[in-house]
């Protein structure tokens, strides 16, 4: 089953592409460091999106050319960035006021596990080492929508969408939508609601690799993503 999934599942870039399609024109968006940063690459033509980075910039743009970096101008992942017209700088307390104060339209994070009640585990495997939380526990609170992008299952094939997280929580009841390598799922009133799935996988096979019940609405749309 796991091998079969590997042949049909979306790549990370394709998951990012799918998530980018739902970001509306004019949205204020924070993309978590790592995988979620890729979403900006796939911003649809004609939409203006204002990206927030928690280290104090609104309205940043693409990475600079190699050799053009200014290390006073970085994002939360400590990567060099450029500014778009209309950008603004601010200190960290203002930055997190934008986050917790409900001013962002969307925050997108990665996940180790997401639970059907909206709990998210994405900061610690709980297995020792050096703990590091960064802004994750703040970013899950306040944005109008908190989305997760993730593989549908772990490398071992275990479900990442579960009934209750077993790994240390980042936040409780915070996730509103999950974009996976197989499906798009909303979290509504403590349950997963399947919105889209890859046409190559049956509902039963998708349910089999999901750790909690997938409810369905009237229709399940095909998750169709171009090669990117």
């Amino acid at each position, binding site marked *: 089953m796991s091998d079969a999934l590997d042949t049909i599942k979306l790549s990370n870039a394709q998951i990012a592409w799918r998530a980018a399609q739902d970001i509306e024109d004019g949205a204020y968006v924070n993309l978590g460091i790592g995988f979620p940063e890729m979403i900006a690459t796939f911003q649809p033509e004609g939409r203006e999106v204002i990206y927030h*980075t*928690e*280290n*104090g*910039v609104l309205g940043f743009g693409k990475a600079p050319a190699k050799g053009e*970096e*200014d*290390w*006073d*101008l*970085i994002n939360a992942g*400590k990567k060099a960035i450029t500014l778009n017209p209309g950008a603004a*700088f*601010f*200190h*960290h*307390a203002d*930055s*997190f006021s934008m*986050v*917790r104060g409900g001013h962002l339209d969307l925050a997108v994070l990665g996940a180790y596990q997401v639970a059907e009640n909206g*709990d998210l585990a994405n900061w*610690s495997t709980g297995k020792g*080492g*050096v*703990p*590091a*939380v*960064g*802004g*994750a*526990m*703040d970013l899950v*609170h*306040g944005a109008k929508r908190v989305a997760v992008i993730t593989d549908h299952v772990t490398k071992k094939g275990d479900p990442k969408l579960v009934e209750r997280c077993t790994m*240390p*929580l*980042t*936040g*409780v009841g915070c996730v509103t939508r999950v974009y996976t390598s197989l499906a798009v799922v909303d979290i509504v009133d403590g349950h997963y609601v399947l919105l889209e799935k890859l046409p190559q996988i049956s509902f039963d096979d998708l349910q089999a690799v999901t750790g909690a019940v997938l409810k369905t609405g009237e229709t399940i749309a095909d998750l169709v993503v171009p090669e990117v």
Partner: protein
Amino acid sequence: MDKTLPSLSEAVAGIGDGSSIMIGGFGGSGAPIELIHALIDAGPKNLTVINNNAGNGHVGLAALIEQGRVAKLICSFPRSADPKVFTDLYLAGKIELEIVPQGTLAERIRAGGAGIPAFYTPSSYGTDLAEGKPVEEFDGKHYVRERWLKADFALIKGELGDPFGNLTYRMAARNFNPLMAMAAGQTIAQVSKIVPAGEIDPEHVVTPGIFVDSVVQVADPKQEETLNREGAVYP
């Protein structure tokens, strides 16, 4: 009024063993590398350091840690491209770590500077980092009580400074610096240029001089990122 000092060594001379020190910056951006190196030269130890990170490579905060001067670190994200200095000491049990969510860290520092001893935040509710902290419900949602954070000293980095201690910052190097300036007993700022009073347009002052005790000029400040790409090691 003249808060300017002629040298980095004079700027850090008052920092003794056991001090708590807020150090500005987010990664290398806004990190007062030269002030940190002067602190290494000055020699105080058993320090508690408050910074977003735990240093990178073998310069700046990482060098201070590598020299064994830091007993405790309060930060949100002690990982970096080259976190070996902190990681080795931490895993060997030789440095204490308090992990604070980044927004909570910023707000605790702001609160410390603003005379607010505690506040409630949604961040960390229901997680391991809220353990032992009071929780209260407001309008149907749960919030965790967090305490203010203050320090004996703040080492910060600005762009322009004047004799009154008024400061501007450069791009995203602002980050924690203005907050830390408010929350420390003594705030020491390194700036790229000291200008005469009146040269910074009052409309453009980011940190008013009331929060700053001394200003020292470092004309061409080094970037942690640049130093690390050169493989620099301090001292």
